[in-house]
């Protein structure tokens, strides 16, 4: 196998994720210029292998050579990376759902530095070749699975790669689209014979299309060679059987062939399921269009069709999960209603994705369902024991489902679905991604259930060999049922060679494609464009612009993020402006005058005349005073003792008490200040009255000047500080999300597999957020002026420039945090906490920076907000000129630079 040149070679490569071993000492050569298939079920290490060859994952142990160089070396990857195209696993994972077909490819073209005309020409070629031309303007998220995969392929092919790596490109795609996809790859290879293609697939029946096969199991390569060689070596008729034969003996021992048994006769008298003209629309989209069928009792009825053809929607209508827009469904003669509990007790349902509680153990999941289906208490343990035995779950009963292999998880789902002994099972793709041995075991249980217990089974599948095991099948496409019948009858009816061929025939007919002219649009492919010269720049503004442009487009199409960006700051500014106020006014004041003399009334008068107090009805008893405080109806009370007037006249210095509501200490403290000055005014007034002149020691007055804020309005001080808080909180969260979102949706793969540099990626993604932050800054200035009447008194230029550097720093801060985060929700909360805590506590919002000491001061000064708050306060309230704010502005610019450098250092171009 070393005869031909190798496009890639792996030497003793091992890879693990935590304690899971993905690749176990793999050594392998992949021939150049060929179409290489990597086959095996889910979770055997196919994706890891491909990612290592593509250079998007960091090599842990061993050596990977590709395109004649060591993929561990950054220089090799930078130089040769542009010759590789990588399409990650999952439908449209490297696409941006809100961007149109054209915009998606255009973005990829820009990443490779192609000019406008070159891009246009290439995109037109690719769209014509793939038949996507009519959908140029459609958002990628609204394409069918097959179309998404074609679009992904277009994106991968935009730069004429020499090595094309496709990770499960046809999983979840209907057989017709699958065929078209492979034809397309074939014609591209015909056009560029030198191109090597490496494909991973879980469909064994696709294996015959490849020129070279690598069969994998449990992180190891169990065989490689041409398909013919492998079939010959194992002496099996098809690849699936050959694959089982290649497995290690102990695994093969678990395998038992599926034996079909005929249904007992006489069960078709009354149908188990009857669907009549079922239709379901979502808005203007018709997911299921006038579907009718009957399923007999005990029948195994298979539903075939591509992702998004309406299978799942039909199943949900039958379970009552979704109400039908039109038509009726009957189960055992009774109409299905969404609130019909009795129907639900007769149905067991297994949804497409694993949907049991991963936080509960296997046993707890079973118990929960036993309870919710109201199994009699004495029956529960018996039934659960029975199921644990029958589905071989006993050894894992205390494990959480997450830690189990897919095959066992599916068995658990089936056990849960049959737990309440339903007369019918509705199973949505129960075997998707499960390895062949586990799949056969699963089918044996299904056949037992159907034949021995008369359970009606309604399931959907992508596998043709499973479809052949069904009593009858229904072919579905674009919401319509194309054909119903026994598999053999359908094949015979159409005169097809196989069920797959038959299905494709129906699909092609429905789509109006003439299969007799397979030349199709692919034949029109133009000759390969001249290869772009090897001009690989370290910095290319076009790539940076590609990211900035795309980020902006995506953002503008996401209402939640746009609302957060613009509405968020303004709403919060209003809330902070009104909500955090240190103005203490309208204090509820009441007098408890036990003297009622002219002197006491004069004292009360002194208090009630204060503009801070609002006078309440007088208090008449000590108990009432207590009671009024307790209910919060009084916040300040003046208690004047009996004989106050007499004592005063006699010069005996009577004592009056002022009670404050201490529940809110700041308010109480401020009211105490008011009381102190009122009391001293009153005293002075008395002295003046008595002696006729301001004779005594009150010759010295303290004149307080409230600078910058003469009216001493809280809002004048709060608005600039709040601006500091909001312009870190919102921009940092948004820019953090921007990066983490790509990690979560998988489009980060484009950053990893294209020549874009870390700097271009970071700055490109940062620019839109700086722009947005500057717009919301202007809006905030308007809110300050219009709502709170707080104008900019000082240099607006200094404020604007300081803000520009500040938001550059805060968006950089967000990106810096994002390098540690994996999920959006973690990024949101972590960024919120990390920005709110220092901004509120250590940056002059509550406590002036000059009053901070120790660690609080260090934390404050090592983050941008503490440097920006003096700029806003200076420009808004203090009316300072540019020159006085210049030092702070310079420090902010330093922070912007610092965070960019830090993010660059921490961001990894390769996945771990």
């Amino acid at each position, binding site marked *: 196998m070393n005869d031909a040149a190798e496009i890639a070679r792996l030497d003793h490569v091992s890879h693990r994720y935590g304690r899971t071993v993905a690749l176990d000492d793999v050594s392998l050569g992949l021939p150049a210029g060929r179409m290489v298939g990597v086959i095996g079920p889910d979770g055997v290490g196919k994706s890891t292998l491909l990612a290592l060859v593509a250079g998007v994952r960091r090599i842990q142990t061993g050596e990977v050579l590709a395109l004649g160089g060591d993929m561990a070396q950054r220089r090799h990857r930078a130089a040769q990376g542009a010759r590789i195209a990588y399409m990650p696993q999952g439908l449209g994972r490297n696409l941006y759902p809100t961007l149109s077909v054209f915009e998606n490819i255009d973005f990829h073209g820009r990443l490779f530095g192609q000019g406008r005309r070159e891009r246009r020409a290439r995109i037109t070629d690719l769209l014509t070749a793939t038949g996507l031309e009519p959908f140029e303007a459609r958002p990628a998220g609204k394409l069918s699975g097959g179309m998404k995969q074609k679009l992904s392929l277009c994106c991968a092919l935009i730069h004429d790669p020499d090595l094309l790596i496709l990770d499960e490109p046809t999983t979840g795609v209907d057989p017709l689209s699958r065929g078209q996809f492979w034809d397309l790859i074939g014609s591209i290879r015909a056009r560029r014979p030198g191109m090597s293609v490496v494909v991973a697939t879980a469909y064994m029946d696709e294996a015959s299309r490849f020129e070279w096969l690598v069969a994998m199991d449990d992180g190891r390569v169990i065989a490689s060679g041409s398909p013919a060689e492998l079939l010959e070596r194992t002496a099996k008729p098809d690849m699936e059987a050959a694959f089982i034969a290649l497995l290690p003996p102990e695994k093969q021992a678990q395998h038992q062939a599926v034996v079909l048994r005929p249904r007992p006769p006489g069960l078709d008298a009354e149908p*188990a399921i009857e669907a009549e003209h079922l239709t379901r629309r979502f808005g203007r989209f018709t997911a299921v269009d006038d579907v009718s069928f009957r399923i007999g009792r005990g029948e195994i009825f298979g539903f075939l069709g591509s992702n998004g053809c309406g299978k799942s929607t039909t199943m949900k209508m039958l379970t009552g999960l979704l109400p039908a827009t039109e038509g009726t469904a009957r189960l*055992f*003669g009774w109409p299905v209603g*969404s*609130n019909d*509990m*009795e129907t639900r007790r*007769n149905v067991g*349902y297994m*949804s497409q994705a694993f*949907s049991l*509680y*991963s936080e*509960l153990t296997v046993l707890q999941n079973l118990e929960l369902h036993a309870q*919710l289906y109201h199994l009699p208490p004495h029956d529960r343990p018996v039934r659960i024991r029975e199921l644990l035995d029958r589905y071989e779950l006993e050894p894992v009963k205390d494990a*959480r489902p997450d830690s189990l292999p897919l095959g066992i998880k599916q068995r658990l789902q089936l056990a849960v679905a049959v737990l309440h*002994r339903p007369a019918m099972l509705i199973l949505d793709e129960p075997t998707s991604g499960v390895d062949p041995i586990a799949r056969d075991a699963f089918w044996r249980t299904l056949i037992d259930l159907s034949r021995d217990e*008369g359970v009606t089974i309604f399931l959907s599948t992508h596998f043709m060999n499973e479809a052949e095991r069904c009593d009858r099948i229904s072919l579905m496409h674009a919401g319509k049922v194309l054909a119903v019948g026994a598999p053999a009858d359908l094949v015979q009816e159409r005169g097809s060679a196989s069920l797959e061929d038959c299905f494709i025939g129906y699909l092609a007919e429905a789509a109006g494609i003439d299969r007799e002219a397979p030349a199709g649009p692919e034949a029109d492919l133009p000759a390969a464009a001249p290869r772009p010269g090897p001009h690989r720049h370290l910095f290319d503004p076009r790539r940076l612009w590609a990211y900035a442009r795309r980020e902006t487009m995506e953002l503008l199409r996401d209402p939640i993020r746009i609302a957060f960006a613009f509405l968020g700051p303004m*709403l919060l500014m209003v809330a902070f402006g*009104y*909500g955090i106020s*240190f103005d203490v006014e309208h*204090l509820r004041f009441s007098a408890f005058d036990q003297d009622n003399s002219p002197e006491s009334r004069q*004292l009360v008068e002194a208090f009630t005349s204060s503009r801070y107090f609002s006078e309440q009805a007088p208090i008449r008893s000590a108990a009432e005073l207590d009671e009024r*405080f307790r*209910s*919060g109806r009084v916040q300040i009370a003046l208690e004047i003792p009996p004989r106050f007037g007499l004592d005063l006249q006699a010069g005996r*210095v009577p*004592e*009056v008490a*002022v*009670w*404050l509501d201490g*529940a809110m*200490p*700041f308010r*109480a*403290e401020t009211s*105490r*200040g008011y*009381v102190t000055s009122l009391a001293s005014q009153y005293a002075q007034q008395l*002295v003046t009255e008595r002696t006729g002149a301001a004779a005594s020691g*009150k*010759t*010295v*007055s303290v*004149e*307080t*000047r409230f600078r910058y804020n003469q009216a001493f309005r809280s809002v004048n*001080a709060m608005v*600039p500080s709040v601006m500091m808080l909001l312009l870190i*909180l919102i921009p940092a969260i948004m820019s953090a999300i921007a990066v983490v979102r790509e990690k*979560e949706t998988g489009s980060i793969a484009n950053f990893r597999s294209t020549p874009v540099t870390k700097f271009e990626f970071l700055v490109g993604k940062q620019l839109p957020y700086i722009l947005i932050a500057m717009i919301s800054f202007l809006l905030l200035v308007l809110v300050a002026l219009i709502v709170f009447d707080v104008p900019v008194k000082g240099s607006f230029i200094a404020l604007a420039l300081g803000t520009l550097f500040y938001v550059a720093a805060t968006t950089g801060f967000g990106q810096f945090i994002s390098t540690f985060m994996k999920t*959006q929700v973690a990024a949101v909360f972590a960024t919120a906490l990390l920005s709110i805590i220092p901004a509120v506590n250590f940056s002059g919002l509550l*406590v*002036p920076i000059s*009053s*901070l*000491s120790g660690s609080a001061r260090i934390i404050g000064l090592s983050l941008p907000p503490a440097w920006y708050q003096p700029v806003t306060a200076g420009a808004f309230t*203090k009316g300072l000129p540019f020159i006085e704010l210049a030092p702070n502005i310079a420090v902010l610019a330093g922070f912007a630079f610092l965070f960019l450098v830090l993010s660059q250092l921490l961001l990894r171009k390769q996945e771990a």
Partner: protein
Amino acid sequence: MAAPAHPARGAARSQGPAPAPLGFGTHVANVLRLIVKELRSIRADPVMLFLVLYAFSFAVVSVASGASTEARNMTIGVVDEDHSDLSRQIVSAFNPPLFKEVVPIGPDEVDPAMDTGRLVFVIDLPPRLQRDVLSGHPTSIELDVDATAMTQAGNGSVYIQTIITQEIAAFAARSERNDTAPVRVVTRAKFNPNLQTSWFTSVMQVINNITLLTVILTGAALIREREQGTVEHLLVMPLVPIEIMLAKVIANGMVILVAAGFSLLIVVEWWLGVPIAGSIALFLFGAGLYALAVAALGILLGTIATSMGQFGLLVIPVLLLMQLLSGSSTPMESMPVWLQYVVQTVSPTPHFVALAQAVLYRGAALSIVWPQLLALIALGSIYFAFALARFRRVIFGD
């Protein structure tokens, strides 16, 4: 065959189903089982558990002992143009912890020091101050205050005035110019005699945590089920949406209530030594009603957001708004009247804050706080009904 062949239920069904025995008891049983499930889910999420534990213990302590609106460490500068015994005596009266060390400055340094925010207070002691005081000649001392430092400016200037007046009075007294005020005014603070900020902030932190964590926990529980697809699974079972929602609301609300109760008893009362005046049971009753309302809000937000990330973006502004405008940061009466009406109509939080302050600080009883309880019940029901309607619609995909 391991399973005993059960009678073909379809055959029985074809005779027509017995009317479904879905009494009230069945619903209650379902809700109880689902509550157990929710509690198990919470227990299996170490991050959330840690968050709840941390928020109700260390976060409360750190807020109580950290950021404070008590005036402390105030920066003060003095322009001493008198250089007399009196002026030195006044300067020496400004001491820690209330003040940082006094910074002596020249008259021309005042503006830069205040512009840059180095000093918040500057006192200008005029020339001939001592002589004027002794001779009874009227004079004035200027106090410049940086009024952008809101937490310090107001109270700080009152302290400084008082200190100066006292020092001058004491100085004058020594020089035989006796002068006593004709009335003695004593201020006493009820419920918090020493006006310690921590008494206020610790309890308010517990209250804010109840809002924050109930919304996040409940919303996240719903979104997790939506993302995992387990909600669908619940809906094919013989359950109705209200059971699912009630279980979430009750289970998450209960966890928060228990944590809040412990936090008040152990962290606030025992650890921080803050006395709690009223009945904790009454408070928890109110908190229970409140938790139902905000848990419904969490469900509501969980139906609007389709992913955890979106949920995060939605929940942060909503929570900040609710908290800031609730009266737990600054008094309700400081807000414009129209805004008070708006938040009291829209949000349950101000009612709960009012209730909590009344019960926990002032020891108010049911006879006083019943209007707040009624408001909580009314708003809670509206929230719950609205959330349920959305929950049904979103999950059923209409």
